[in-house]
């Protein structure tokens, strides 16, 4: 019998432990720059490429190195990965990529790479880590698209550039609206999981009471 421990795929990173909605990590690009669906796509793609490749590459960095050195290496690897990412994005979305480049550049010091790797990803086997980190990045993309689509509809009355209706709230592209929107999403996510947890704890209690009766 194999003594290897198996790790089931965990989808908590999508909503329950979403890095933006529950941990408040990497929020700046979404709050300020995700004002259209296309920008959300550019931000999600850049976040995926920089973070995912860095997480995979940095796995080989020995854990015996002190944390101070490891964190520097993570940031340096991410900033090297930024180079092909930026070139690819410039090729695919020349105008949009350049307009949000500041928020792509700061992804090199994002907390998914600098913190989550140490507290979660590098504590599990490579294959599980590869899927787990992908789930977290997908969770980020979901929020980016939700925020981008809502703001594009409100600000420009378009969706992916196609006319949908009149623009009813041009100020929705401002950072303050980004804060409001992400705050509301975070509260909605928390309310849903609070209610689900209450229901899960209440159900066995109800069954036990019925059995006693």
């Amino acid at each position: 019998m194999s003594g290897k421990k198996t790790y089931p795929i965990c989808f908590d990173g999508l909503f329950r432990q979403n890095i933006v909605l529950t941990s408040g990590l990497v929020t700046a690009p979404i709050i300020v720059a995700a004002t259209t669906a296309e920008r959300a796509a550019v931000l999600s793609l850049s976040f995926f490429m920089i973070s995912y490749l860095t997480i995979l590459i940095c796995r080989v960095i020995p854990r015996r190195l002190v944390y101070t050195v490891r964190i520097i290496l993570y940031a340096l690897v991410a900033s090297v990965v930024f180079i092909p990412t930026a070139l690819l994005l410039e090729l695919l979305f020349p105008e949009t990529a350049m307009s949000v480049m500041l928020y792509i550049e700061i992804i090199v010091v994002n907390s998914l790479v600098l913190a989550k790797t140490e507290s979660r990803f590098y504590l599990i086997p490579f294959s599980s880590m590869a899927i787990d980190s992908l789930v977290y990045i997908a969770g980020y993309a979901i929020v980016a698209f939700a925020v981008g689509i809502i703001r594009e509809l409100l600000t420009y009355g378009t969706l992916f550039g196609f006319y949908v209706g009149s623009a009813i709230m041009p100020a929705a592209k401002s950072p303050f609206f980004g804060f409001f929107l992400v705050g509301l999403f975070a509260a909605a996510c928390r309310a849903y999981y609070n209610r689900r947890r209450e229901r899960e704890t209440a159900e066995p209690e109800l069954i036990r009471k019925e059995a006693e009766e």
Partner: protein
Amino acid sequence: MEIITAIISAAMVSIFVQNAIFERAFGSNVTIYASRKESHISGFTIGITAMTTVASAITYFLDSALLPLEFGWLLMPVIYVAIISILYISALLFLWRLFPKVFARVKKYAHLAIFNCTVIGALFLNSNYGSDIWSYIGYGLGTGIGFFLACLLLNIAHEKLDSDKIPKAFRGYPIMLVYIGVISLAFYALVGYTVDF
């Protein structure tokens, strides 16, 4: 006198017009974390201010060499991270040798104060808007002061925003974001326009 004016005006822009937290959302999570304890506010502010000011002065010379190159902008993240890393190690060694008690206290969260969007974002903004070394230094200094202002405003409200009066789902992080949004709206009104990335 001209130098002081240049530093102060760049710092004012960085604090009020392009506040790293309220206008750019750089390091919102670090601000929320630091604002919970008063001791954290001073520690984080000193770390971020020292880092943005010193790193800004260094990057001025590198920007002058890199920006004229066609693909110079691609190398900027690597160079900025390298500068921050060197300063981070130097600061840790300095504290370890001269102030061991302070080092023991701050080593747990020093990386949070250094490797965050506020610090690296300030360097990138400097490369876009800075004109001379004094404006670079002023902008870096102003970023740290702007961070302190944000922490202070969040710290004042922290107790109330975490109280029973706030609906359970909003308590803590979500209401903090809404609160930052309200202050951001006030800054938006104060300046009269919003930054265009």
